[in-house]
């Protein structure tokens, strides 16, 4: 079963790595890189991406003529997807365990961040035979 683990964070929320001490930031990066490496080695990682900053985000809709109409910049309190992992695991519990590990990534002073990770199953089940 595939799950997507989404790390959501407000534009100016607790995940403000730019303001951390150098040591804390480096510990965080080392943790994240080791985390991905471990998942990959275990054959559980399908994909992982970090997204560019929310100040570059634009909301796009089609206008009357079908051409894109863009909207932005967004309030700093709005939640944004900072990055995600897609994992392929045997059980929901395992997906939760991986999410908890990511959630406990070290933050300022090396303390676990315990940030919220949204876990959703990826629809990838085979279709049932239709009778």
């Amino acid at each position, binding site marked *: 079963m595939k799950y997507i683990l989404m790390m959501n964070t407000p534009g100016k929320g607790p995940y403000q790595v*730019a303001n951390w001490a150098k040591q804390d930031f*480096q510990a965080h990066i080392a943790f994240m*890189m080791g985390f991905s490496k471990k998942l990959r080695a275990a054959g559980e990682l399908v994909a992982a991406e970090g997204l560019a900053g929310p100040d570059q985000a634009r909301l796009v809709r089609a206008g009357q003529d079908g051409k894109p109409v863009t909207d932005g910049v967004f309030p700093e309190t709005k939640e944004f997807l900072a990055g995600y992992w897609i994992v392929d695991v045997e059980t929901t519990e395992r997906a939760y365990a991986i999410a908890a590990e990511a959630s406990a990534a070290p933050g300022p002073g090396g303390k676990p961040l315990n940030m919220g990770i949204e876990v959703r199953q990826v629809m990838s089940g085979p279709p049932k035979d239709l009778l």
Partner: protein
Amino acid sequence: MTSPTLDAHQERLLRDLAPQVLGMVIRRFRDFSASEDAVQEALIAAAAQWPREGLPDEPRAWLYQVASRRIADQVRAEAARRRREAIVVSLVPPELQIALAADDDDTPAEHDDTLVLLFMCCHPALSPASAIALTLRAAGGLTTAEIATAFLVPEATMAQRISRAKQSIKASLVPFQMPTAEERDQRLGAVLHVLYLIFNEGYTTSSGPTLHRSDLSSEAIRLARTLHALLPDHAETAGLLALMLLTDARRAARTGPAGELIPLDDQDRRLWDQPAIVEGIALLSATLPRGAIGAYQLQAAIAAVHDEAARAEDTDWPQILALYGLLQRMSDNPMVALSHAIATAMVHGPAAGLALLRALDADPRLTGNHRLDAARAHLLERSGDHEGAIEGYRRAAQRTTSIPEQNYLLTQAARLNEAPLKAR
């Protein structure tokens, strides 16, 4: 048991033969797209059979025959579907045929074919992404799967990109022939640009977690070598090859153990690849005295000045500044102006560099570009304005799309943020 794979010599041979064989097949069947597919299948067949059965006596003829058989089978199947419609002389429907040179004869022209193929794959009608993919497959002999892996996209995505590129070539009616003398320089410029892009994509990945994908850089160097061998007197081709060698020489020193970016100043220069530096400088020395200096030669000369300094503080910045001055006069490129500003700061102090950067603020091509912020932060730090530097590093970190670069910029900001605390 795993099946044996090609050894380095066979692999190299296969990739060198790929464009030559493709040229021969195109000449016979006159359908670029079908020929390209057939040669790709022949390469895959070779990769499976040669390690097991050994190298055939005539590897090129072997590949040509396998590819020809594939294409003939395919055309025959097609013809059968058309209820035995009359088969045209070339076996390919005229609407699918591409034009051949009027003076085309049967003399072996494999070297020219490689060149013509590069001209075709790098045609200005193609988008850079399409040209890159097509060049790697048709001229480089890489499989779609290998190209997809290098660009971190699914194979189906890359297959689509290649197929679109081939359609564009068909639609543009580009003939499979040597461009005219007047066209040649411009077309050659496009080929060099595509090779340069492939190298850069390998050297500084534009996205993803790892800083360089060395396979793409190596492939770009291999293709540049091929081109240089075909056109030994073309100065800018030599310049581009030198630039690649002199830049790639620093590869081992450019990242730390955890994959983090290490700037030029902090690199362990003992890790630089001396043979590559020697080769690059020799190429440049042979080319520069001939006059007609181009942008690739100038960039290679700048890389050479860096590579010749045993320590960062030994760098001959006045010479680099002079070279950037020449480069700037040659091309209106804001990235060159940015590097020129940094070199100015190294020679005349950070204030002079910052003044040049301020002039670039108005350039719309740099709006939102993280490099301007990063360069400014670097010079502000040198001028002692740590607060301004921290802000610049952070803004650059927000704007870059490279994760290693982002980590580097944030580390710089964090380092400065701590500095005043330590001083107190």
